[in-house]
């Protein structure tokens, strides 16, 4: 399972369609404070099905939709697509949300349920409880967690 591409628009500060191609090795994302770097992590985690508001730094799910700036009007839809290579073929996951709160999930262009996406990722290490995503300010997460939580993490990697 390789991360190939991220494409997003209307998601938080990414008003316009923006595409990231991911290659092998180490990629760094850089830029001034407040320019939108952590919003990229939020976009990937959200596309994989995240529904918790705290880790997305929002109050309602609609808060991920671009809410306007001095020069630009708010929009009514946010969309994030993440493409993977699963060893044999490309798999495209997409999530869309409208102002009225309705969510749509797509896999390779077909409307699916969130559960289908979660089932697809089961056992691959990708997906919501991926230990390998460390949000900003949470570098001490693994030393601060309770011993029971640490045990669950090791069980999940068994």
């Amino acid at each position, binding site marked *: 399972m390789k991360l190939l591409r991220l494409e997003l628009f209307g998601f938080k500060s990414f008003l316009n369609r923006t595409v990231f191609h991911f290659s092998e090795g180490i*990629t760094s*994302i*850089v830029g001034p404070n407040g320019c*939108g770097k952590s919003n990229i992590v939020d976009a990937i985690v959200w596309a994989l099905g995240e529904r918790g508001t705290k880790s997305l730094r929002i109050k309602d799910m609609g808060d991920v939709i671009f809410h306007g700036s001095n020069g630009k009007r708010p929009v009514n839809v946010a969309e994030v697509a993440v493409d993977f290579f699963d060893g044999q073929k490309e798999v495209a996951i997409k999530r869309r949300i409208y102002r009225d709160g309705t969510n749509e999930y797509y896999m390779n262009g077909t409307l699916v349920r969130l559960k289908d996406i979660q089932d697809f990722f089961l056992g691959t290490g990708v997906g919501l409880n991926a230990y390998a995503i*460390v949000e*900003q300010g949470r570098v001490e*997460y693994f030393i601060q967690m309770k011993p029971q939580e640490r*045990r669950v993490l090791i069980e999940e990697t068994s």
Partner: protein
Amino acid sequence: AKDIFSETFVRVNETFQRFVKTLFKGGKGYLSLTQDGSGVDMYVQPPGKKVNRMEQLSGGEKALVSIAFLLALMDTRPSPFSLLDEIDAPLDDSNLLSLLQIMKDISAKTQIVFITHNRLTMESSDTIYGITMEEEGVSKIVSVRL
């Protein structure tokens, strides 16, 4: 289920010990099951120090211990990719360079994506994406030359 857990536990523990030794340039670290077996504790002794409780460690030392555990999981059961948002903020240059060396090795199996303000991390990356807000409030990609 019990056997699989203890097998994985042994491997994660061995790898944790190895990464602690590398990151702390010595010393020792290990994981151990709690008395009732329901949880996993972690202990680290930086070289030459006597640490009674993990709370005594410095901010940077705590970050390194936490990272060593993450690396142990990533090594035992590689995840396809890893997103790391400013994990280098509390580290001094020498510890960051040791971490980046380990990350270079791990990046053969796992795609690593750092978000960083630190030049050392940028310089050891294969690809760099710059983000900017030419129009206030609107993010876009911009090319970066180091």
